[in-house]
């Protein structure tokens, strides 16, 4: 960066002062400012990070009225923990900037963006709280000396990191790690991710969640553009078994480290939502069939299980064992999927979407009317089927409290364990099917149906199979959902509502998260559940915000949060194609050279 600074400085220098209007770009001004030496900029970041870390031990306001109590000196509280964590992370990220050995892996693609991301995370989340203090308590007078320290201290790293010239480069070649270390890294990363998620779920008040979300957002951007996430993804891809086991362990640890039924309820809902989203991912992400009525299959599973569960209001006075309910729920959902799919799958694209939307609504309206008055008596109409008993498996009553390893499991904790099993089954099926003759056929149909048929693929049959499989997986989740909620009513299965699961949110979870991947829909489901849940003060404007988020997402990252390789390519074709073509060419010339040498 040293050699290009003078010329940029000379062009921007004199003109910049008076007309700081639109003529002078921010870049030029940054270039001007970058005459600050890199070591000074780094020092600025360091000082700021240390100071903001220290400021979390001071009081940020004088009154405990602000949620989380920021008035204690000598101990962080509430949102100060977020600032503390991000400042600490920022100090760690200075490691690669100063070339500290053993920390360079944090920034394979350059440390400046990592610093910028974390500095912004620190700045935005801290300033958000400080402004919230000033606004909610009516006036900046509620700031105390600690607040000023925090406000100024978080500004410094942001300024410092943007004074550093961008050092983004091609990722350095990864040093091969021994197997045990790879597994350890994967495990640690997944546990950390779980802890962060756990913090997000257990945030007690809106300000804490917003501060958390802002910090996470910017930090994730920094980590992503520094290349460390890509490296982690590579590691998980190389250690599939370890990744699965770690994820399962993390999910189990989650229920042990926090154990209130309130948070377990959230976790249950997220897991159900994610499981159904994964099922939809087979239909949408692999086979490319846009299904807007998918929640109906969750409903079919739930109604089937509820009807034969021995519920008081069920028309059938039978109480089948759970496994029979499960088989029946899956089977009936599959039949429903085939019945709905058979006529509609002859359509393509938008037409299919519209027709599935219609069928989804038909399901809801039908069960609403099958009450004996306007149709045969089957589903007890709008009241639904209530009194679905809690599950009992092998003498384990899911409605009772249990002691496991010294931890008390309430109802929702019990169901959480069962739902994890269900989700593991769906993930297992998804991975296996994705990488098989079946998955290839689906992707081929998605890519070019005519060519796929010319390759011997019976397009209609395979689309129907995707539809049926997706429906059965939703039915599986539905049977458990019926017992979890103890009630099944038609209005739980809307096309769109302010809370998931509904068809619109399911599709959004798949698309936002990343089609055709496993982590994508999981992440998408967690985000789409938590954000509206935690921001309930928005009330009826949730959907508006949701729409806005979708638009922004489609504009800036159309391939989803976790892009599958294929998807990423579709949307950022030119950049990636170029890089790959170069790779191929390089490989080609190497091959030729090798050939010539031989």
């Amino acid at each position, binding site marked *: 960066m040293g050699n290009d600074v003078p010329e940029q400085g000379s062009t921007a220098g004199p003109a910049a002062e008076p007309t700081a209007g639109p003529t002078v770009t921010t870049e030029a001004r940054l270039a001007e400012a970058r005459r600050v030496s890199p070591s000074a900029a780094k020092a600025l970041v360091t000082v700021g990070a240390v100071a903001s870390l220290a400021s979390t031990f001071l009081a940020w306001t004088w009154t405990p009225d602000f949620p989380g109590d920021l008035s204690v000196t000598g101990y962080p509280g509430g949102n100060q923990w977020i600032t503390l964590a991000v400042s600490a992370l920022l100090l760690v990220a200075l490691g690669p900037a100063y070339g500290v050995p053993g920390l360079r892996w944090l920034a394979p693609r350059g440390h400046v963006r990592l610093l910028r991301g974390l500095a912004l995370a620190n700045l935005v989340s801290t300033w958000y709280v400080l402004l919230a203090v000033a606004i909610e308590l009516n006036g900046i007078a509620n700031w105390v000396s600690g607040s000023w320290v925090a406000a100024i201290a978080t500004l410094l790293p942001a300024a410092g990191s943007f004074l550093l010239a961008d050092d983004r480069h091609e990722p350095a070649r990864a040093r091969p790690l021994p197997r045990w270390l790879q597994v350890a890294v994967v495990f640690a990363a997944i546990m950390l991710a779980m802890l962060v998620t756990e913090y997000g779920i257990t945030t007690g008040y809106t300000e804490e969640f917003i501060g958390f979300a802002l910090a996470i957002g910017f930090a994730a951007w920094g980590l992503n553009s520094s290349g460390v996430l890509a490296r982690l993804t590579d590691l998980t891809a190389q250690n599939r078994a370890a990744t699965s086991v770690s994820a399962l362990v993390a999910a189990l640890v989650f229920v042990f480290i926090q154990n209130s039924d309130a948070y377990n309820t959230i976790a249950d809902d997220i897991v159900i939502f994610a499981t159904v989203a994964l099922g939809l991912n087979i239909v949408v992400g692999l086979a490319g069939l846009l299904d807007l009525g998918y929640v109906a299959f969750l409903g079919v599973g739930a109604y089937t299980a509820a009807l034969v569960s021995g519920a008081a209001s069920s028309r059938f006075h039978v109480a089948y064992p759970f496994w029979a309910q499960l088989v029946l729920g899956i089977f009936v959902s599959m039949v429903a999927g085939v019945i709905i799919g058979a006529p509609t799958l002859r359509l393509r694209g938008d037409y299919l979407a519209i027709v599935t939307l219609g069928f989804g609504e038909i399901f809801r309206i039908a069960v609403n009317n099958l009450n004996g008055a306007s149709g045969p008596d089957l589903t007890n109409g709008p009241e639904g089927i209530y009194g679905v008993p809690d599950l009992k498996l092998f003498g384990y009553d899911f409605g009772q409290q249990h002691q496991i390893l010294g931890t008390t499991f309430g109802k929702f904790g019990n169901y959480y364990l069962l739902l994890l099993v269900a989700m593991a089954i769906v993930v297992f*099926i998804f991975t296996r099917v994705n990488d098989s003759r079946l998955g290839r056929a689906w992707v*081929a149909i998605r890519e070019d149906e005519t*060519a796929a048929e*010319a390759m011997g693929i019976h397009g209609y049959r395979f689309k129907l199979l995707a539809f049926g499989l997706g429906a059965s997986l939703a039915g599986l989740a539905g049977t458990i959902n019926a017992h979890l909620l103890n009630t099944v009513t038609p209005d739980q299965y809307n096309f769109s509502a302010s809370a998931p699961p509904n068809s619109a949110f399911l599709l959004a979870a798949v698309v936002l998260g990343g089609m055709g991947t496993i982590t994508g829909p999981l992440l998408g489901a967690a985000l789409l559940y938590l954000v509206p849940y935690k921001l309930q003060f928005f009330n009826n404007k949730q959907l508006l915000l949701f729409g806005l988020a979708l638009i922004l997402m489609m504009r800036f990252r159309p391939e989803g949060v976790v892009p599958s390789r294929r998807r990423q*390519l579709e949307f950022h074709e030119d950049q990636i194609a170029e890089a790959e073509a170069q790779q*191929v060419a390089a490989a080609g010339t190497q091959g030729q050279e090798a050939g010539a040498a031989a």
Partner: protein
Amino acid sequence: MTTTTETGAQAAAAGAAGVLEARGVTMRFGGLTAVDGVDLSVGDREIVGLIGPNGAGKTTFFNCLTGLYVPTSGQVRYKGALLPAKPYKVTQAGIARTFQNIRLFANMTVLENVMVGRHSRVKEGLFSAIGRGPRYRAAERDSRENAHELLDFLGIGRHSGSLARNLPYGDQRKLEIARAMASDPGLILLDEPTAGMNPQETRATQEVVFKIRERGLAVVVIEHDMRFIFGLCDRVAVLVQGRKLVEGTPEVVRADERVIAAYLGTPVDGAADDSEGTAS
């Protein structure tokens, strides 16, 4: 040239042991007759060229053969059996094709593309994909090995891991051929395999087609490059305005004045009537 003379005898025997027998294939789109009563027979290990000016109905005829279109009248037999009118069943029966405008699965890897081509020769379904028993693993290994073998056969083995859309143009054409061959067909239909290629690539493609024949396949090629066609084919059929104008050895076709007239745009009157006479 040696190949041509060698298969001359085979071409003569083709009538008896025909791989493909198309009789009176007619395709009408409303009032437009795109293909009008075309007969074509392809013998064992024979390379047949199909030429004609733009819009002559060559690709439509291909689509009739492969079940993409159901012919208005006429019938197509493959090794004696009537061909079903569904593309996937035609592939199952043993006819594979490539497309004029490349239709690869652009976002799948090169290897995956070829493995998709193997689809109709593998039976593993949903439950064996989930269970992954020994039979499934054997079938998957077989598809993979077959795909690698074909990629090496066409000389694009080094690309197997990259995405199909990133291949150079000529290699994409080769990949289409590899994908078609993965279904172990007895007959392969190539729709303009050298479109957009430079002379060297065209020559290489010629070699590829000869090598395909050596593997025991019969080939039908649509092409505009006359040098390519005349150097390659045992027999050439000329389609003009949906009708077969001339059929015969490259020498016969090259010498026929009506072919030249058709390409230059002179109206041809009653050409179809005596086309049978010139067929050798």
